[in-house]
Protein backbone atom coordinates (compact mmCIF):
# COMPACT_ATOMS: atom_id res chain seq x y z
CA UNK A 1 0.00 0.00 0.00
CA UNK A 2 1.32 3.49 -0.68
CA UNK A 3 2.67 4.66 2.66
CA UNK A 4 1.20 8.16 2.44
CA UNK A 5 -2.30 6.75 2.03
CA UNK A 6 -1.82 4.30 4.85
CA UNK A 7 -0.51 7.04 7.08
CA UNK A 8 -3.34 9.45 6.29
CA UNK A 9 -5.90 6.73 6.84
CA UNK A 10 -4.34 5.82 10.14
CA UNK A 11 -4.32 9.47 11.24
CA UNK A 12 -7.92 10.01 10.15
CA UNK A 13 -9.01 6.95 12.04
CA UNK A 14 -7.00 7.73 15.16
CA UNK A 15 -8.44 11.19 15.38
CA UNK A 16 -11.90 9.79 14.74
CA UNK A 17 -12.15 8.17 18.13
CA UNK A 18 -10.01 9.09 21.05
CA UNK A 19 -11.64 6.56 23.32
CA UNK A 20 -11.80 2.93 22.28
CA UNK A 21 -15.35 2.51 23.58
CA UNK A 22 -16.43 4.86 20.79
CA UNK A 23 -15.09 2.62 18.03
CA UNK A 24 -18.54 1.32 17.06
CA UNK A 25 -20.11 4.76 16.81
CA UNK A 26 -17.16 6.11 14.80
CA UNK A 27 -17.37 3.20 12.42
CA UNK A 28 -21.13 3.68 11.96
CA UNK A 29 -20.57 7.37 11.18
CA UNK A 30 -17.80 6.48 8.72
CA UNK A 31 -20.19 4.16 6.84
CA UNK A 32 -22.91 6.82 6.65
CA UNK A 33 -20.37 9.34 5.41
CA UNK A 34 -19.07 6.96 2.75
CA UNK A 35 -22.65 6.47 1.52
CA UNK A 36 -23.53 10.16 1.71
CA UNK A 37 -26.37 9.25 4.06
CA UNK A 38 -27.73 11.32 6.93
CA UNK A 39 -29.00 9.74 10.12
CA UNK A 40 -32.61 10.64 10.92
CA UNK A 41 -32.04 10.05 14.61
CA UNK A 42 -29.01 9.69 16.78
CA UNK A 43 -26.81 6.62 16.47
CA UNK A 44 -27.42 4.38 19.41
CA UNK A 45 -24.31 2.24 19.92
CA UNK A 46 -23.50 0.55 23.17
CA UNK A 47 -20.32 1.96 24.73
CA UNK A 48 -18.14 -1.06 25.10
CA UNK A 49 -14.46 -1.73 24.57
CA UNK A 50 -13.89 -3.60 21.25
CA UNK A 51 -12.14 -6.42 23.13
CA UNK A 52 -15.05 -6.84 25.54
CA UNK A 53 -17.56 -6.70 22.68
CA UNK A 54 -15.62 -9.41 20.79
CA UNK A 55 -15.40 -11.61 23.89
CA UNK A 56 -19.04 -11.29 24.95
CA UNK A 57 -20.46 -11.74 21.43
CA UNK A 58 -19.29 -15.34 21.12
CA UNK A 59 -16.85 -14.44 18.34
CA UNK A 60 -13.81 -14.97 20.55
CA UNK A 61 -15.16 -18.31 21.72
CA UNK A 62 -15.32 -19.30 18.02
CA UNK A 63 -11.69 -18.30 17.36
CA UNK A 64 -8.76 -20.46 18.46
CA UNK A 65 -7.47 -24.00 18.43
CA UNK A 66 -10.00 -26.74 19.21
CA UNK A 67 -8.04 -27.83 22.28
CA UNK A 68 -6.82 -24.35 23.23
CA UNK A 69 -8.04 -21.08 24.73
CA UNK A 70 -10.25 -18.65 22.76
CA UNK A 71 -8.17 -16.04 20.95
CA UNK A 72 -8.62 -12.30 20.57
CA UNK A 73 -8.65 -10.80 17.08
CA UNK A 74 -6.90 -7.45 17.31
CA UNK A 75 -9.40 -5.54 15.16
CA UNK A 76 -12.71 -4.07 16.32
CA UNK A 77 -14.94 -6.55 14.45
CA UNK A 78 -17.77 -6.76 16.99
CA UNK A 79 -17.83 -3.00 17.58
CA UNK A 80 -17.84 -2.29 13.84
CA UNK A 81 -20.82 -4.64 13.42
CA UNK A 82 -22.62 -2.80 16.24
CA UNK A 83 -21.85 0.49 14.54
CA UNK A 84 -23.05 -0.72 11.14
CA UNK A 85 -26.37 -1.92 12.57
CA UNK A 86 -26.85 1.32 14.51
CA UNK A 87 -26.15 3.28 11.33
CA UNK A 88 -28.85 1.29 9.56
CA UNK A 89 -31.35 1.80 12.40
CA UNK A 90 -30.59 5.55 12.37
CA UNK A 91 -31.87 5.84 8.78
CA UNK A 92 -35.39 5.11 9.94
CA UNK A 93 -37.11 8.11 11.54
CA UNK A 94 -39.10 5.91 13.90
CA UNK A 95 -38.15 3.11 16.19
CA UNK A 96 -37.88 -0.25 14.40
CA UNK A 97 -37.30 -3.88 15.24
CA UNK A 98 -33.61 -3.21 14.68
CA UNK A 99 -33.44 -1.23 17.91
CA UNK A 100 -33.56 -4.49 19.83
CA UNK A 101 -30.70 -6.11 17.94
CA UNK A 102 -26.94 -5.86 18.24
CA UNK A 103 -24.77 -6.10 15.16
CA UNK A 104 -22.19 -8.22 16.99
CA UNK A 105 -24.85 -10.79 17.91
CA UNK A 106 -25.69 -11.28 14.22
CA UNK A 107 -22.14 -12.48 13.57
CA UNK A 108 -22.28 -15.41 16.00
CA UNK A 109 -25.93 -16.45 15.86
CA UNK A 110 -25.48 -19.23 13.30
CA UNK A 111 -22.92 -20.92 15.56
CA UNK A 112 -25.27 -20.48 18.51
CA UNK A 113 -27.93 -22.49 16.70
CA UNK A 114 -25.63 -25.07 15.08
CA UNK A 115 -23.49 -25.60 18.16
CA UNK A 116 -20.36 -25.09 16.04
CA UNK A 117 -17.21 -24.30 17.94
CA UNK A 118 -13.62 -23.19 17.31
CA UNK A 119 -11.49 -25.57 15.29
CA UNK A 120 -8.27 -23.62 14.77
CA UNK A 121 -7.33 -23.73 11.09
CA UNK A 122 -10.56 -25.52 10.14
CA UNK A 123 -13.73 -23.45 9.76
CA UNK A 124 -16.53 -23.84 12.28
CA UNK A 125 -18.67 -25.21 9.47
CA UNK A 126 -15.91 -27.62 8.45
CA UNK A 127 -15.59 -26.98 4.71
CA UNK A 128 -12.76 -24.41 4.79
CA UNK A 129 -9.15 -25.10 5.81
CA UNK A 130 -5.97 -23.12 6.02
CA UNK A 131 -3.25 -24.97 4.12
CA UNK A 132 0.40 -24.22 3.40
CA UNK A 133 1.57 -23.89 -0.17
CA UNK A 134 5.35 -23.97 -0.64
CA UNK A 135 5.56 -20.17 -0.38
CA UNK A 136 2.39 -18.90 1.35
CA UNK A 137 -0.67 -19.85 3.35
CA UNK A 138 -3.99 -20.44 1.60
CA UNK A 139 -7.63 -20.77 2.53
CA UNK A 140 -9.29 -23.62 0.63
CA UNK A 141 -13.07 -23.90 0.88
CA UNK A 142 -14.71 -26.96 -0.67
CA UNK A 143 -18.27 -26.02 0.33
CA UNK A 144 -20.18 -27.88 -2.39
CA UNK A 145 -20.04 -31.67 -2.50
CA UNK A 146 -19.23 -31.45 -6.18
CA UNK A 147 -16.17 -29.32 -5.48
CA UNK A 148 -14.42 -32.54 -4.51
CA UNK A 149 -14.82 -33.82 -8.07
CA UNK A 150 -12.78 -30.81 -9.25
CA UNK A 151 -9.86 -31.43 -6.90
CA UNK A 152 -7.96 -33.82 -9.23
CA UNK A 153 -8.18 -31.25 -12.02
CA UNK A 154 -7.10 -28.49 -9.62
CA UNK A 155 -4.03 -30.35 -8.33
CA UNK A 156 -3.43 -32.43 -11.50
CA UNK A 157 -3.25 -35.50 -9.29
CA UNK A 158 -5.76 -37.68 -7.53
CA UNK A 159 -6.68 -36.48 -4.03
CA UNK A 160 -9.80 -37.60 -2.20
CA UNK A 161 -9.34 -36.25 1.32
CA UNK A 162 -7.78 -33.33 3.19
CA UNK A 163 -4.47 -35.07 4.11
CA UNK A 164 -3.87 -35.91 0.44
CA UNK A 165 -4.75 -32.34 -0.59
CA UNK A 166 -2.37 -30.89 2.03
CA UNK A 167 0.50 -33.06 0.80
CA UNK A 168 0.06 -31.87 -2.77
CA UNK A 169 -0.58 -28.22 -1.89
CA UNK A 170 2.61 -27.84 0.12
CA UNK A 171 4.68 -28.74 -2.95
CA UNK A 172 3.16 -26.03 -5.16
CA UNK A 173 3.44 -22.25 -5.32
CA UNK A 174 0.42 -20.30 -4.07
CA UNK A 175 -0.08 -18.23 -7.21
CA UNK A 176 -0.38 -21.29 -9.41
CA UNK A 177 -2.81 -22.99 -7.00
CA UNK A 178 -4.98 -19.89 -6.76
CA UNK A 179 -4.99 -19.35 -10.54
CA UNK A 180 -5.95 -22.95 -11.30
CA UNK A 181 -8.66 -22.90 -8.61
CA UNK A 182 -10.14 -19.74 -10.12
CA UNK A 183 -10.40 -21.35 -13.53
CA UNK A 184 -12.33 -24.16 -11.86
CA UNK A 185 -14.56 -21.94 -9.73
CA UNK A 186 -13.09 -23.16 -6.43
CA UNK A 187 -12.81 -20.82 -3.44
CA UNK A 188 -9.04 -20.74 -2.87
CA UNK A 189 -7.25 -17.59 -1.79
CA UNK A 190 -3.99 -16.40 -0.25
CA UNK A 191 -3.91 -15.30 3.39
CA UNK A 192 -2.76 -11.68 3.32
CA UNK A 193 -3.73 -8.20 4.42
CA UNK A 194 -5.12 -6.58 1.27
CA UNK A 195 -3.34 -3.42 0.25
CA UNK A 196 -5.30 -0.21 0.69
CA UNK A 197 -5.40 1.26 -2.78
CA UNK A 198 -6.05 4.89 -3.61
CA UNK A 199 -9.62 4.33 -4.68
CA UNK A 200 -10.25 2.99 -1.21
CA UNK A 201 -9.34 6.14 0.64
CA UNK A 202 -12.98 7.18 0.95
CA UNK A 203 -15.02 4.21 -0.14
CA UNK A 204 -13.35 1.01 0.83
CA UNK A 205 -16.13 -1.48 0.66
CA UNK A 206 -18.42 -0.66 -2.24
CA UNK A 207 -18.19 0.54 -5.81
CA UNK A 208 -20.89 2.21 -7.87
CA UNK A 209 -20.88 0.16 -11.06
CA UNK A 210 -23.76 1.82 -12.92
CA UNK A 211 -25.90 4.91 -12.40
CA UNK A 212 -29.21 5.92 -13.89
CA UNK A 213 -32.15 8.19 -13.25
CA UNK A 214 -33.31 8.46 -9.65
CA UNK A 215 -36.89 8.68 -8.55
CA UNK A 216 -38.63 10.53 -5.79
CA UNK A 217 -40.24 8.29 -3.21
CA UNK A 218 -43.66 8.87 -1.78
CA UNK A 219 -43.71 9.25 1.98
CA UNK A 220 -44.41 6.04 3.87
CA UNK A 221 -44.09 3.97 0.73
CA UNK A 222 -43.21 0.40 1.54
CA UNK A 223 -40.34 -0.60 -0.76
CA UNK A 224 -40.50 -3.86 -2.66
CA UNK A 225 -37.35 -5.93 -2.29
CA UNK A 226 -36.54 -8.85 -4.58
CA UNK A 227 -33.99 -11.08 -2.86
CA UNK A 228 -32.31 -13.45 -5.34
CA UNK A 229 -29.58 -14.50 -2.93
CA UNK A 230 -28.89 -17.67 -0.99
CA UNK A 231 -26.99 -18.90 2.08
CA UNK A 232 -26.18 -16.09 4.53
CA UNK A 233 -24.97 -12.66 3.40
CA UNK A 234 -27.76 -11.76 0.98
CA UNK A 235 -30.59 -13.34 3.01
CA UNK A 236 -29.41 -11.45 6.13
CA UNK A 237 -29.53 -8.23 4.10
CA UNK A 238 -33.13 -8.99 3.07
CA UNK A 239 -34.07 -9.91 6.63
CA UNK A 240 -32.81 -6.57 7.97
CA UNK A 241 -34.72 -4.67 5.27
CA UNK A 242 -37.86 -6.59 6.21
CA UNK A 243 -37.32 -5.51 9.82
CA UNK A 244 -37.28 -1.90 8.57
CA UNK A 245 -40.70 -2.46 6.99
CA UNK A 246 -39.86 -3.47 3.42
CA UNK A 247 -41.91 -6.08 1.55
CA UNK A 248 -39.29 -8.71 0.83
CA UNK A 249 -39.77 -11.47 -1.72
CA UNK A 250 -37.27 -14.30 -1.73
CA UNK A 251 -36.98 -15.69 -5.23
CA UNK A 252 -35.58 -19.17 -5.82
CA UNK A 253 -35.01 -21.33 -8.86
CA UNK A 254 -37.24 -24.41 -8.86
CA UNK A 255 -34.38 -26.63 -9.99
CA UNK A 256 -31.72 -24.99 -7.82
CA UNK A 257 -33.26 -23.61 -4.61
CA UNK A 258 -31.27 -21.96 -1.83
CA UNK A 259 -28.87 -24.63 -0.54
CA UNK A 260 -29.57 -23.46 3.01
CA UNK A 261 -32.97 -25.17 2.72
CA UNK A 262 -31.18 -28.48 3.17
CA UNK A 263 -29.12 -27.20 6.10
CA UNK A 264 -30.22 -26.17 9.60
CA UNK A 265 -33.97 -25.33 9.58
CA UNK A 266 -33.52 -22.91 12.48
CA UNK A 267 -30.92 -20.93 10.54
CA UNK A 268 -33.02 -20.94 7.37
CA UNK A 269 -36.07 -19.75 9.31
CA UNK A 270 -34.08 -17.02 11.03
CA UNK A 271 -32.82 -15.63 7.73
CA UNK A 272 -36.00 -15.99 5.73
CA UNK A 273 -39.03 -15.77 8.03
CA UNK A 274 -41.08 -12.71 7.15
CA UNK A 275 -40.27 -12.92 3.43
CA UNK A 276 -42.70 -14.03 0.76
CA UNK A 277 -41.43 -16.94 -1.33
CA UNK A 278 -41.53 -17.24 -5.10
CA UNK A 279 -40.15 -20.18 -7.07
CA UNK A 280 -39.62 -19.93 -10.81
CA UNK A 281 -38.31 -22.38 -13.40
CA UNK A 282 -35.33 -20.46 -14.73
CA UNK A 283 -34.57 -23.15 -17.31
CA UNK A 284 -37.52 -21.97 -19.40
CA UNK A 285 -37.91 -18.80 -21.43
CA UNK A 286 -41.22 -18.10 -19.67
CA UNK A 287 -39.50 -18.32 -16.28
CA UNK A 288 -36.79 -15.89 -17.38
CA UNK A 289 -39.48 -13.46 -18.55
CA UNK A 290 -41.21 -13.68 -15.16
CA UNK A 291 -37.88 -13.01 -13.44
CA UNK A 292 -37.32 -10.02 -15.69
CA UNK A 293 -40.82 -8.66 -14.92
CA UNK A 294 -40.35 -9.12 -11.17
CA UNK A 295 -37.04 -7.28 -11.41
CA UNK A 296 -38.84 -4.43 -13.18
CA UNK A 297 -41.29 -4.16 -10.27
CA UNK A 298 -38.72 -4.19 -7.46
CA UNK A 299 -37.42 -1.06 -5.75
CA UNK A 300 -34.41 -2.91 -4.33
CA UNK A 301 -32.73 -6.01 -5.76
CA UNK A 302 -30.41 -8.14 -3.63
CA UNK A 303 -28.30 -10.47 -5.66
CA UNK A 304 -25.29 -12.57 -4.68
CA UNK A 305 -24.31 -14.60 -7.71
CA UNK A 306 -21.45 -14.08 -10.09
CA UNK A 307 -22.45 -11.48 -12.71
CA UNK A 308 -22.33 -14.10 -15.45
CA UNK A 309 -25.21 -16.06 -13.87
CA UNK A 310 -27.88 -13.45 -14.66
CA UNK A 311 -26.17 -12.49 -17.90
CA UNK A 312 -26.53 -16.07 -19.09
CA UNK A 313 -30.27 -15.73 -18.36
CA UNK A 314 -30.38 -12.66 -20.59
CA UNK A 315 -30.49 -10.14 -17.72
CA UNK A 316 -28.16 -7.16 -17.88
CA UNK A 317 -28.06 -5.48 -14.47
CA UNK A 318 -25.95 -2.53 -15.61
CA UNK A 319 -28.27 -1.68 -18.52
CA UNK A 320 -31.32 -1.99 -16.28
CA UNK A 321 -29.93 0.61 -13.89
CA UNK A 322 -28.73 2.98 -16.62
CA UNK A 323 -32.09 2.93 -18.42
CA UNK A 324 -34.11 2.20 -15.33
CA UNK A 325 -36.70 3.70 -13.09
CA UNK A 326 -34.67 4.47 -10.00
CA UNK A 327 -33.97 1.00 -8.79
CA UNK A 328 -31.38 0.09 -6.15
CA UNK A 329 -29.36 -2.98 -7.09
CA UNK A 330 -27.08 -4.57 -4.50
CA UNK A 331 -24.56 -7.01 -5.98
CA UNK A 332 -22.78 -9.10 -3.36
CA UNK A 333 -19.75 -10.96 -4.72
CA UNK A 334 -16.49 -12.34 -3.38
CA UNK A 335 -14.20 -9.89 -5.13
CA UNK A 336 -16.29 -7.53 -7.26
CA UNK A 337 -17.91 -7.32 -10.69
CA UNK A 338 -14.93 -6.26 -12.79
CA UNK A 339 -12.97 -8.76 -14.90
CA UNK A 340 -11.27 -10.98 -13.94
CA UNK A 341 -12.51 -10.81 -10.30
CA UNK A 342 -16.10 -11.29 -11.49
CA UNK A 343 -15.28 -14.95 -12.12
CA UNK A 344 -13.87 -15.64 -8.64
CA UNK A 345 -16.02 -17.09 -5.90
CA UNK A 346 -15.82 -16.73 -2.14
CA UNK A 347 -17.66 -17.96 0.93
CA UNK A 348 -17.66 -16.29 4.30
CA UNK A 349 -14.64 -18.04 5.80
CA UNK A 350 -12.26 -17.62 2.88
CA UNK A 351 -13.46 -14.02 2.41
CA UNK A 352 -12.39 -13.38 6.02
CA UNK A 353 -8.95 -14.77 5.18
CA UNK A 354 -8.74 -12.72 1.96
CA UNK A 355 -9.73 -9.65 3.97
CA UNK A 356 -6.71 -10.05 6.24
CA UNK A 357 -8.09 -11.48 9.49
CA UNK A 358 -6.04 -14.70 9.50
CA UNK A 359 -2.84 -12.79 8.79
CA UNK A 360 -3.58 -10.28 11.57
CA UNK A 361 -4.34 -13.14 13.98
CA UNK A 362 -1.03 -14.76 13.01
CA UNK A 363 0.95 -11.54 13.48
CA UNK A 364 -0.63 -11.03 16.89
CA UNK A 365 -0.94 -14.53 18.37
CA UNK A 366 1.52 -16.56 16.33
CA UNK A 367 -1.24 -19.07 15.57
CA UNK A 368 -2.80 -20.01 12.24
CA UNK A 369 -6.53 -19.48 12.78
CA UNK A 370 -9.77 -18.75 11.04
CA UNK A 371 -11.68 -15.89 12.65
CA UNK A 372 -15.13 -16.94 13.99
CA UNK A 373 -17.78 -18.55 11.73
CA UNK A 374 -17.92 -17.54 8.05
CA UNK A 375 -17.32 -13.99 9.24
CA UNK A 376 -17.43 -12.43 5.76
CA UNK A 377 -21.07 -13.45 5.31
CA UNK A 378 -22.83 -11.68 8.20
CA UNK A 379 -20.52 -8.66 8.00
CA UNK A 380 -21.37 -8.26 4.33
CA UNK A 381 -25.09 -8.79 4.89
CA UNK A 382 -25.06 -6.00 7.46
CA UNK A 383 -23.16 -3.58 5.23
CA UNK A 384 -25.29 -4.50 2.22
CA UNK A 385 -28.52 -3.70 4.11
CA UNK A 386 -27.16 -0.29 5.09
CA UNK A 387 -26.08 0.44 1.50
CA UNK A 388 -29.43 -0.72 0.11
CA UNK A 389 -31.49 1.44 2.46
CA UNK A 390 -29.28 4.51 2.09
CA UNK A 391 -29.28 4.36 -1.72
CA UNK A 392 -33.03 3.64 -1.80
CA UNK A 393 -33.68 6.70 0.36
CA UNK A 394 -31.59 8.79 -2.02
CA UNK A 395 -33.81 7.80 -4.94
CA UNK A 396 -31.99 4.67 -6.11
CA UNK A 397 -30.72 4.53 -9.68
CA UNK A 398 -27.51 2.80 -8.73
CA UNK A 399 -25.89 -0.61 -8.97
CA UNK A 400 -23.57 -1.09 -6.02
CA UNK A 401 -20.98 -3.80 -5.97
CA UNK A 402 -20.20 -5.02 -2.46
CA UNK A 403 -17.37 -7.57 -2.43
CA UNK A 404 -17.15 -9.62 0.77
CA UNK A 405 -13.36 -9.38 0.77
CA UNK A 406 -13.55 -5.58 0.73
CA UNK A 407 -16.04 -5.38 3.60
CA UNK A 408 -13.73 -7.48 5.76
CA UNK A 409 -10.69 -5.53 4.60
CA UNK A 410 -12.20 -2.19 5.57
CA UNK A 411 -12.83 -3.48 9.10
CA UNK A 412 -9.40 -5.09 9.25
CA UNK A 413 -7.85 -1.74 8.30
CA UNK A 414 -10.08 0.40 10.55
CA UNK A 415 -7.90 1.90 13.25
CA UNK A 416 -5.38 -0.89 12.84
CA UNK A 417 -1.92 -0.39 14.34
CA UNK A 418 0.32 -0.67 11.30
CA UNK A 419 3.50 -1.93 12.89
CA UNK A 420 3.72 -5.56 13.95
CA UNK A 421 4.92 -4.59 17.43
CA UNK A 422 2.04 -2.14 18.02
CA UNK A 423 -0.40 -4.77 16.82
CA UNK A 424 1.04 -7.29 19.24
CA UNK A 425 0.90 -4.80 22.11
CA UNK A 426 -2.75 -4.11 21.34
CA UNK A 427 -3.48 -7.83 21.16
CA UNK A 428 -1.91 -8.46 24.57
CA UNK A 429 -3.90 -5.64 26.15
CA UNK A 430 -7.14 -6.70 24.51
CA UNK A 431 -6.59 -10.35 25.44
CA UNK A 432 -6.28 -9.26 29.08
CA UNK A 433 -9.38 -7.05 28.90
CA UNK A 434 -11.33 -10.01 27.56
CA UNK A 435 -10.40 -12.33 30.41
CA UNK A 436 -13.53 -13.20 32.36
CA UNK A 437 -15.77 -11.77 29.61
CA UNK A 438 -15.63 -14.69 27.15
CA UNK A 439 -19.06 -16.11 26.37
CA UNK A 440 -20.24 -18.86 24.04
CA UNK A 441 -22.41 -17.71 21.12
CA UNK A 442 -26.02 -17.18 22.17
CA UNK A 443 -29.13 -16.33 20.19
CA UNK A 444 -32.89 -16.49 20.59
CA UNK A 445 -34.74 -18.95 18.42
CA UNK A 446 -36.38 -17.36 15.38
CA UNK A 447 -39.98 -16.29 16.00
CA UNK A 448 -41.41 -17.35 12.66
CA UNK A 449 -40.91 -19.91 9.95
CA UNK A 450 -39.67 -19.38 6.42
CA UNK A 451 -42.33 -19.86 3.75
CA UNK A 452 -42.19 -23.14 1.78
CA UNK A 453 -40.58 -23.03 -1.66
CA UNK A 454 -42.92 -21.20 -4.02
CA UNK A 455 -45.69 -20.74 -1.43
CA UNK A 456 -46.41 -17.18 -2.59
CA UNK A 457 -45.63 -17.43 -6.30
CA UNK A 458 -49.17 -16.84 -7.53
CA UNK A 459 -49.85 -14.06 -5.02
CA UNK A 460 -46.67 -12.13 -5.80
CA UNK A 461 -46.99 -12.51 -9.57
CA UNK A 462 -50.54 -11.13 -9.22
CA UNK A 463 -49.75 -8.34 -6.78
CA UNK A 464 -46.64 -7.27 -8.68
CA UNK A 465 -48.65 -7.52 -11.93
CA UNK A 466 -46.50 -10.11 -13.63
CA UNK A 467 -48.11 -12.31 -16.29
CA UNK A 468 -48.20 -15.97 -15.31
Amino acid at each position, binding site marked *: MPDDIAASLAVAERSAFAIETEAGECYGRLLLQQLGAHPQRSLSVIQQHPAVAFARSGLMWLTGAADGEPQMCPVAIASCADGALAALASLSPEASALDHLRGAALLAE*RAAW*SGATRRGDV*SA*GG*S*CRLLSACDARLAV*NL*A*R*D*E*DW*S*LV*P*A*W*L*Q*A*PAADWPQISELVIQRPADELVQ*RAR*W*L*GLAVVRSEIPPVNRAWANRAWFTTIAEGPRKQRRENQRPRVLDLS*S*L*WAGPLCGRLLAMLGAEVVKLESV*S*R*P*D*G*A*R*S*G*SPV*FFDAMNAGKLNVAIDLTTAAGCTQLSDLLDSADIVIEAS*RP*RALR*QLGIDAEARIRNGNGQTWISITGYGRRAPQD*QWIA*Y*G*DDAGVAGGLTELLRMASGQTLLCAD*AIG*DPLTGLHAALAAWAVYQQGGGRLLSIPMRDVVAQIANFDRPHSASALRTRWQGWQQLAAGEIAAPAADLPRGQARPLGADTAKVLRDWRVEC
Partner: protein
Amino acid sequence: MAMIALKAGGRFKSAVSEVQVMVIKAPPGEHRVQCGGVDMLGANAPAPEPAAIDSADSGETLIGKRYVNADESLELLCTKGGKGSLTLGGAALEIKQAKQLPSSD
Protein backbone atom coordinates in the same frame (compact mmCIF):
# COMPACT_ATOMS: atom_id res chain seq x y z
CA MET B 1 -2.14 -33.56 -33.06
CA ALA B 2 -5.49 -34.88 -33.93
CA MET B 3 -5.52 -37.58 -31.22
CA ILE B 4 -4.54 -36.50 -27.73
CA ALA B 5 -4.34 -38.04 -24.30
CA LEU B 6 -6.58 -36.21 -21.83
CA LYS B 7 -5.62 -35.91 -18.16
CA ALA B 8 -7.48 -34.23 -15.29
CA GLY B 9 -6.24 -30.67 -15.04
CA GLY B 10 -5.09 -30.49 -18.67
CA ARG B 11 -5.98 -27.25 -20.47
CA PHE B 12 -6.88 -26.74 -24.12
CA LYS B 13 -7.81 -23.82 -26.31
CA SER B 14 -9.90 -23.52 -29.43
CA ALA B 15 -8.18 -23.02 -32.77
CA VAL B 16 -11.12 -20.96 -34.04
CA SER B 17 -12.32 -18.83 -31.14
CA GLU B 18 -11.63 -17.64 -27.60
CA VAL B 19 -12.83 -20.86 -26.01
CA GLN B 20 -10.65 -22.50 -23.35
CA VAL B 21 -11.40 -25.64 -21.37
CA MET B 22 -9.94 -27.64 -18.51
CA VAL B 23 -10.27 -31.43 -18.29
CA ILE B 24 -12.16 -32.44 -15.14
CA LYS B 25 -12.11 -36.14 -15.95
CA ALA B 26 -11.46 -38.19 -19.04
CA PRO B 27 -11.49 -41.78 -20.26
CA PRO B 28 -8.08 -43.39 -20.82
CA GLY B 29 -6.51 -43.46 -24.27
CA GLU B 30 -6.23 -40.83 -26.97
CA HIS B 31 -9.15 -38.79 -28.19
CA ARG B 32 -10.05 -36.16 -30.69
CA VAL B 33 -11.51 -33.02 -29.09
CA GLN B 34 -12.75 -30.26 -31.33
CA CYS B 35 -14.28 -26.81 -30.99
CA GLY B 36 -16.21 -25.41 -33.92
CA GLY B 37 -15.23 -28.41 -36.03
CA VAL B 38 -11.46 -27.89 -35.64
CA ASP B 39 -9.05 -29.77 -33.34
CA MET B 40 -8.38 -28.02 -30.04
CA LEU B 41 -4.79 -27.15 -29.07
CA GLY B 42 -2.80 -27.40 -25.85
CA ALA B 43 -3.26 -24.20 -23.82
CA ASN B 44 0.40 -23.26 -24.21
CA ALA B 45 0.72 -24.28 -27.86
CA PRO B 46 1.99 -21.57 -30.23
CA ALA B 47 -0.56 -19.53 -32.15
CA PRO B 48 -2.14 -21.84 -34.70
CA GLU B 49 -2.44 -21.47 -38.43
CA PRO B 50 -5.58 -19.42 -38.98
CA ALA B 51 -8.50 -21.84 -39.09
CA ALA B 52 -12.12 -21.18 -39.90
CA ILE B 53 -14.99 -22.30 -37.77
CA ASP B 54 -17.23 -24.93 -39.36
CA SER B 55 -19.90 -22.81 -40.99
CA ALA B 56 -22.56 -25.34 -39.95
CA ASP B 57 -21.68 -24.79 -36.29
CA SER B 58 -23.65 -21.89 -34.86
CA GLY B 59 -23.09 -23.04 -31.27
CA GLU B 60 -21.46 -21.29 -28.39
CA THR B 61 -19.51 -22.64 -25.43
CA LEU B 62 -20.34 -20.91 -22.14
CA ILE B 63 -17.93 -20.01 -19.37
CA GLY B 64 -18.45 -21.91 -16.15
CA LYS B 65 -20.47 -24.69 -17.76
CA ARG B 66 -19.38 -28.31 -17.61
CA TYR B 67 -19.59 -30.29 -20.85
CA VAL B 68 -19.96 -34.09 -20.88
CA ASN B 69 -20.23 -36.90 -23.42
CA ALA B 70 -23.13 -39.36 -23.44
CA ASP B 71 -21.79 -41.69 -20.70
CA GLU B 72 -20.21 -38.77 -18.77
CA SER B 73 -16.78 -40.41 -18.91
CA LEU B 74 -15.43 -37.13 -20.28
CA GLU B 75 -16.05 -33.85 -18.51
CA LEU B 76 -14.64 -30.52 -19.65
CA LEU B 77 -15.09 -27.21 -17.83
CA CYS B 78 -15.22 -24.10 -19.98
CA THR B 79 -12.83 -21.54 -18.46
CA LYS B 80 -13.26 -18.99 -21.25
CA GLY B 81 -16.38 -18.74 -23.37
CA GLY B 82 -16.68 -18.20 -27.11
CA LYS B 83 -18.00 -19.43 -30.40
CA GLY B 84 -18.07 -23.06 -31.48
CA SER B 85 -19.50 -26.25 -30.00
CA LEU B 86 -17.35 -28.88 -28.30
CA THR B 87 -17.18 -32.42 -29.67
CA LEU B 88 -15.43 -35.65 -28.72
CA GLY B 89 -14.68 -37.94 -31.67
CA GLY B 90 -17.30 -36.04 -33.66
CA ALA B 91 -20.08 -36.43 -31.07
CA ALA B 92 -21.41 -33.24 -29.51
CA LEU B 93 -20.82 -32.64 -25.79
CA GLU B 94 -23.78 -31.54 -23.69
CA ILE B 95 -24.03 -29.13 -20.76
CA LYS B 96 -24.09 -30.90 -17.43
CA GLN B 97 -26.57 -29.65 -14.84
CA ALA B 98 -25.33 -26.81 -12.63
CA LYS B 99 -23.70 -27.61 -9.31
CA GLN B 100 -26.16 -27.72 -6.45
CA LEU B 101 -25.62 -24.97 -3.92
CA PRO B 102 -23.99 -25.90 -0.62
CA SER B 103 -26.19 -26.14 2.45
CA SER B 104 -23.74 -24.02 4.39
CA ASP B 105 -20.24 -22.69 4.13
